[in-house]
């Protein structure tokens, strides 16, 4: 089922690694910085889920659009949003992706096709349908992706969107990022059906479930559903089964985890470890190449934090701008 790493060209594999590593480093650093205390607001980390964002978004260009979630950093980075600007945004500074007005939960970059992280569960689904609809009229074969959590997949907005996409035959893929939890509640409690593929079927959508800790599996499955969407074959749903490494938000004591659960997922369900194992075993990439990327990424994130902390705050006049185009 899983495509062999050799099926992808080494440059693409290295790029995927760089992106996944960037997300991981970004999130782990936020975890540390948040604990240090001077990072404002709610921060939801994507660490552990990198294979999903990168496996899927690596099929896209800037003309394709994505609508993301409250846990959006990974999607942003994979979609090419500037990491330096993201870090500034999370610190609420000028020069941030949203000039400090949005923060972690609202990072967007329309030019890159990133329609926004979203503080409202399920809200991205209709927006992504709209992006897919626009793509249809614009006629250039673009697609839209909506990422949604396992918990948020119970929102009416999301469910309505599945039907709408099917009725209008939209070029869209709904990606359920099933990390097993919605806040402190297990997916087993909140979702009454075994597989999101079954739910898709209830709306007339083809669905596929993949091991979301396996980049190559995600990449292959995504390639198929995205190609179908581009060719006018309509919407699909893809479930990525994965894990989150940190709490729901920073500060969460995670009492809902079973004994040894965190150690286990770190040890056995780390998508980056799996990736490294796959590419080194097959010899596609060597340890040195990966280490070089690691160092490069670590330096980048370091610089991002330093610059973000040094960046100026918005000023009073900024409070009143950007509400309307004209008023």
């Amino acid at each position, binding site marked *: 089922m899983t495509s062999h790493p050799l099926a992808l060209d080494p440059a693409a594999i290295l790029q995927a690694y760089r992106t996944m590593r960037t997300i991981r480093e970004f999130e782990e650093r936020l975890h540390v910085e948040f604990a240090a205390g001077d990072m404002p607001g709610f921060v939801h980390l994507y660490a552990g889920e990198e294979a999903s964002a990168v496996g899927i978004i690596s099929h896209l260009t800037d003309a394709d*659009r994505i*609508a993301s979630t409250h846990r959006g950093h990974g999607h942003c980075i994979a979609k090419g949003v500037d990491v330096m600007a993201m870090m500034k945004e999370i610190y609420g500074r000028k020069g*941030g*992706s*949203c*000039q*400090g*007005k*949005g923060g972690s939960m*609202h990072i*967007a*970059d*329309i*030019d890159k096709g990133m*329609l*926004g992280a*979203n*503080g*409202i569960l399920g*809200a991205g*689904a*209709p*927006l*992504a*349908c*709209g*992006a897919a*609809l*626009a*793509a249809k*009229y*614009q006629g250039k074969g673009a697609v*839209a992706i909506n990422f949604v959590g396992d918990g948020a997949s119970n929102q*009416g*907005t999301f469910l*309505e*969107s599945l*039907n*709408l996409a099917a*009725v*209008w035959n939209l070029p869209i893929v709904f990606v359920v990022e099933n990390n097993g939890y919605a806040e402190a509640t297990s997916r087993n409690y909140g979702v009454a059906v075994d597989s999101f593929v079954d739910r898709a079927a209830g709306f007339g959508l083809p669905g596929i479930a993949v091991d979301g800790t396996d980049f190559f599996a995600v990449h292959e499955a995504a390639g198929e559903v995205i190609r179908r969407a581009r060719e006018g074959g309509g919407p699909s749903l893809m479930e990525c089964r994965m894990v989150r490494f940190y709490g729901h938000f920073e500060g969460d004591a995670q009492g809902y985890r079973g004994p040894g659960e965190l150690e286990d997922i770190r040890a056995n369900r780390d998508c980056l470890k799996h990736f490294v194992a796959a590419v080194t075993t097959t010899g596609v990439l060597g340890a040195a190449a990966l280490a070089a990327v690691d160092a490069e990424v670590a330096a980048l994130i370091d610089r991002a934090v330093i610059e973000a902390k040094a960046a100026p705050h918005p000023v009073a006049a900024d409070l009143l*701008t*950007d*509400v*309307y*185009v*004209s*008023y």
Partner: protein
Amino acid sequence: MARKLSIRQAINEAIDQEMSRDPRVIMMGEDIVGGHGSEGEIDCWGGALGVTKGLYGKYGDRLLDTPLSESAYVGAAIGAAVCGMRPIAELQFIDFMGVCFDQIYNQAAKFRYMFGGKAQTPVVIRAMIGAGFRAAAQHSQMLTPIFTHIPGLKVVCPSNPYDAKGLLIQAIRDNDPVIFGEHKVLYGIEGEVPEASYAIPFGEANIVRDGDDCTIVTYGMMVHRALEAAALLEKEGIDAEVIDLRTLSPLDMDTILESVERTGRLVCVDEASPRCNIATDISAQVVQAAFAALQAPIMMVTPPHVPVPFSPVLEDIYLPDSTKIAAAVRRTLEGKRH
């Protein structure tokens, strides 16, 4: 000229002209075409009250009938707007905003600000507003204050065919999200409407009757009731000025203040429920900005704080009418000689 159209026709014409002018304009809603998937006639409805009828024949798939899923399709209109289209979404009755409000007030309204100025969301959400149709509590609301309360939205309510066409054209060309309220009781009223395309800028109230004794500010169907009241008052030698706001957000405070500075008296008429409504908004802004000019209490004429009743007898009492408006004007003139 003197070509007369109903508001219904004026709206249809505005959409028609904009769709023909700009290929990015698309429209979606429940049965805005009608007949899809069945063996009968396509475009048999043109919307619940026939407003969009005939457009499908001209623009085909740029008019999209939707499943009964307002969150999904209103949200899709918003998403498409961010991606370069200029969608018009029809929410049959404004009362249905409760199933899709998040997409409007947390998404469309806030994108530009949350994203630091980088997004534009040129979407128009058309919906029927208002009472008087015997449509009961869930199909008769105004809800205009709710949308006006939200930063990032624009709110428009035409009272006549000329304004309906010009304001809707402006709404479609506007680069911000616009809530366009169409009073269901006014669809049939007729008035002169130029055939050529024209846009009426937002934030410009219309003085529909000049007067020096008291200012009456209102919008929508109440403009007509206010004019009736002014006609009653005229017989008593009272000369009321009537201002039709046309847009509630942005609000043309300049015109209101200028009038109140002159008349010294203000009556705010609002068909919306009384608490935190447009009448309180304008009254409070005027008292803050022009206290010295006021010679009498600002009176508000609104329905009582109750849902819209079904009974026609009760609904007629519920709605502000010319008698109540005239009484409020008289109250502002108490103790004053004419």
